[in-house]
């Protein structure tokens, strides 16, 4: 039972990550490899604040979101001047920078040793410590962020995002402040990813740089692409699918040392197969590949 709940908790956390990246990459067309950086910011802010200042779960969350939101402004900045492949590479740069900070700023983050001992969250005098409670907590935030994003993408705001994805010049000619939209999308998407980082930190009670590498970013992108870019429900399916698939490997009886490697190979192969045979993913309305080709 605990094992099952653990998997479900991870799925909840990844739903927040994949849906929020979908806002940026799927709806607005800004493919970003920096999502794990926002995730990491949420986790590190949580870890540092609760260890050093004993701050509460909710305060950690709000401050993590604020820092990630600020980072969102910075990451969005190059998108105002560069597009497509070049922008992807720029976000990769941000991912590298943030990872280096987590890994090398030893006096603050303890580097590769990570930060242990993050306390369990207390909400309204209630301590969340069992798997069941963590499941409910993460489900609540996954649902909340899903509903929030769903409102956004189905509103006139979302209509502008899709217009920017399809034809930025047209959107400008219609009087839309494309710069502002791109920035807002990174702020909102980044802040939501920080929520996921906060939940992860409080749940695992330990953060280290290895959890926020570029591979993590690629895993989240894979969830968006395999689930379907431009479909929130798709991102939920994508997150569940990519968390569950490697778990199935355990049941085949692979030793865990091998299973960890097989996992990466599996993710990679799935991504290649989807790109070749179903570029729009399970539920997507368009393919990122086609979009990239058209915008040139």
């Amino acid at each position, binding site marked *: 039972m605990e094992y099952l709940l653990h998997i479900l908790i991870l799925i909840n956390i990844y739903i927040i990550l994949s849906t929020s990246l979908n806002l940026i990459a799927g709806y607005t067309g800004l493919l970003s490899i920096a999502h794990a950086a926002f995730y990491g910011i949420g986790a590190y802010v949580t870890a540092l604040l609760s260890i050093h200042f004993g701050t509460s779960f909710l305060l950690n969350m709000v401050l993590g979101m604020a820092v990630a939101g600020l980072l969102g402004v910075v990451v969005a900045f190059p998108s105002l001047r560069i597009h497509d492949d070049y922008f992807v590479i720029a976000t990769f740069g941000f991912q590298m920078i943030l990872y280096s900070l987590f890994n090398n700023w030893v006096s603050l983050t303890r580097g590769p040793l990570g930060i242990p001992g993050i306390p369990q969250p207390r909400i309204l005098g209630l301590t969340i410590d069992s798997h069941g409670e963590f499941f409910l907590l993460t489900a609540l935030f996954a649902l909340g962020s899903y509903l*929030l994003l769903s*409102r*956004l993408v189905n*509103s*006139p*705001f*979302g*209509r*502008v995002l*899709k*217009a920017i994805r*399809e*034809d930025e*010049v*047209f*959107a*400008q*000619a*219609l*009087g*839309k*402040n*494309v*710069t502002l939209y791109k920035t*807002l999308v990174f702020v*909102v998407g980044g802040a939501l990813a920080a929520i996921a980082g906060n939940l992860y930190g409080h749940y695992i009670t330990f953060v280290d740089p290895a959890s926020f590498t570029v591979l993590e970013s690629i895993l989240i992108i894979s969830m968006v692409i395999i689930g379907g870019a431009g479909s929130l429900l798709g991102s939920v399916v994508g997150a569940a699918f990519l968390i569950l698939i490697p778990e199935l490997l355990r049941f085949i009886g692979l030793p865990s040392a091998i299973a960890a490697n097989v996992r990466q190979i599996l993710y990679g192969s799935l991504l290649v197969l989807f790109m070749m045979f179903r570029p729009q993913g399970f539920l997507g*309305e*368009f393919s990122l590949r086609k979009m990239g080709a058209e915008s040139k």
Partner: protein
Amino acid sequence: MIEVRDLSKSFGGIRAVDKVSLRIEEKKITSIIGPNGAGKTTLFNLMTGFLLPDQGQVLFRGEAITGLFPYQIARRGIARTFQDLRLIRQVTVLENVLLAGKNQKGEKLFHALFWNGIRGEEKKLREAARAILAFVGLTEHAGELAGALSYGEQKLLTLACCLAMEPDLLLLDEPVSGIHPEILEKILALFQELVKQGKTVVFIEHDIEAVRKVSDTVVVMDEGKVIATGKPETVLQDPAIVEAYLD
């Protein structure tokens, strides 16, 4: 209405627009003609902020708009179309017009998050969009994907999007080239109707008959310069112009 003063733009040594000065009259139809590469589209791009001039000024209603972003210029009441049709082809005709709607609260993050007053606004927006589609004659295609329309209908749709912005000035880049004569007549009639409603229309066109039919003023450009301006009956009779243009 709109005036350009001494406007120049070069691309790697080629003077695409060369010291152009021009004053467009309000509530009139002005056409810009000239051979390919004469600088017509570049002039539009300079007027709408998509390109920055090397020198010179653009004045709209007496105020300088040089250096403003395209979206700021659009919000001041200048709508434009593009030679290569720009539309969101994957969404419906109606949604394209809704997107163009002016001053939408629902496009602001806060309002979108809390659905604050969006429903009522959307309803009004839809009514307005349907009225515009009726005006340009696309009502029956409202629910179709924009990409499914014929070429001529897509040009009508770009015009509908412009109208949804409630502009005072429309800058249209080849609005009738390469389309069916029936739709062509319709678009020309719409221009005249728009002027009656108090709007100003400027269009770039190669179709001399269309230009002759509706223009109050014709501007002829060649090699980045304005070489003639005047009423169509005089400008289009000038043998020098006819020769330069038809070559």
